[in-house]
């Protein structure tokens, strides 16, 4: 797929990797619907930076824990941009929850956004993407491929994203390809201390990465991966090899 002139919806585009993805797609020539929920200021900055790249940016707000709002998001984006070719599901939380601290509410807060939200945003996008022969890329996490004992709900949500990716890939072929990128330590949580950061750098074969690595992986899946669907591309500096 040539990205120039296409329209992309990026969820969670107000901060961190979602923001990098929105800017990366704009840099590749896409107009972007910048979704946000809590990060209004960040989303406005993302939109401003996209416009500076000469592309159209439209803000779309929704609480994706609400499945109805999630299902309607693609319509909002397509109305704002006039078309929709690409969906990047990136809006997620990563909350440390030792098993005995997990409550039904904290469980739902993670699963409703990270997994149910991805599904219903994708479901709402199907009609648009089918007609455009579009693409979906879900941002998973290596936490969905290996167990993290103090992040069990998070790991489960991301393992769900892996199966969501494969299931949708089969269900939506051949019109829509669906793939995932599973980042490793490309952008550590803001609240991690220096000791933890250093430990991660030292235990990752290629060291810490950057959000750009995820952007490049997503661009490969969009631009070069016309024949690739149902794949989870791990971008983790070799961490899964340990």
């Amino acid at each position: 797929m040539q990205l120039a002139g296409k329209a992309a919806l990026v969820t969670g585009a107000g901060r961190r990797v979602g923001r990098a993805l929105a800017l990366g797609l704009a840099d590749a020539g896409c107009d972007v619907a910048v979704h946000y929920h809590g990060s209004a200021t960040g989303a406005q900055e993302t939109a401003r930076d996209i416009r500076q790249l000469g592309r159209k940016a439209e803000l779309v707000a929704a609480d994706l824990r609400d499945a109805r709002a999630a299902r309607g998001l693609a319509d909002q984006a397509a109305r704002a941009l006039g078309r929709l070719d690409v969906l990047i599901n990136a809006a997620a939380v990563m909350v440390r929850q030792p098993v005995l601290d997990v409550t039904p509410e904290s469980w739902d807060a993670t699963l409703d956004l990270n997994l149910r939200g991805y599904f219903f945003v994708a479901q709402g996008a199907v009609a648009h993407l089918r007609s455009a022969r579009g693409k979906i890329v879900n941002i998973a996490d290596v936490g969905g491929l290996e167990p993290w004992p103090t992040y069990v709900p998070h790991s489960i949500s991301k393992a769900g994203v892996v199966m969501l990716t494969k299931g949708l890939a089969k269900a939506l072929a051949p019109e829509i390809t669906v793939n995932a990128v599973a980042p490793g330590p490309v952008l550590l949580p803001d609240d991690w201390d220096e000791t933890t950061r250093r430990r991660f750098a030292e235990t990752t074969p290629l060291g810490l990465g950057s959000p750009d690595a995820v952007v490049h992986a997503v661009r490969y899946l969009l631009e070069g991966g016309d024949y690739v669907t149902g794949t989870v591309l791990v971008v983790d500096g070799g961490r899964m090899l340990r």
Partner: protein
Amino acid sequence: MAEFRGKVALVTGVGRVGQIGHAVARALGRAGAQLVLVDRVAEVAERAKEFAATGVAARGCTGDLTKPDDARAAVALALKEFGGLDVVVNVAGGLLHMGPAAAIPVEMLDREFAINVKTTVLMCQAAIPALAVRGGGAIVNFASIAVLQPQAQMASYVAAKAAIAGFTRALALEVAPQKIRVNAVAPAAARTADNIKQMGDLPELVPLDDLVAAVLYLASDDARAVTGEILPVTGRSI
């Protein structure tokens, strides 16, 4: 997308037009790489001349990559002609035996492992010192989707490709400190001249452009955080 200007790439299995190695080399050349083309057939010299005629710096190297000296000679050619080596793509290999696993002749087993596993291992061994001198580099090996979804009646090929996948991941871990990345693609049957001839023009054959895009991504700095990955290119979910 992927950019290879100023880089030197060595590609194996480039002897014949219409096959994967040739498509990979052509794309690397178009993206700016200087090329060393390796094959056991002498026609590789012709391929180098054809690339040169299109403005791509290319040298051909005839060698049997089941022999360590021939693998080392290919790397030496890259150093002599282009002053270094940044990328290695091990395409050379192939499917030899089809039939029941219980009846694979031992000679066939040895040969299948030699042309797939031994060539890949020896080429990597020869290339690693040269890649390390440059401060890092990228190796892309050819596994097969059969590694992830085994197929009947070709067990020795599946086993050989699984060995390549295992070697890829083990080597990735070992050479990460030298900033050398090692990955593999895992394609389904590709739309090569040979496959079309043997299997017919099946729609599910992987277009060479799509396979090439995966290889170039893994070989490029775009994938600087990707190592030990076995990347499927199949046209369907797995």
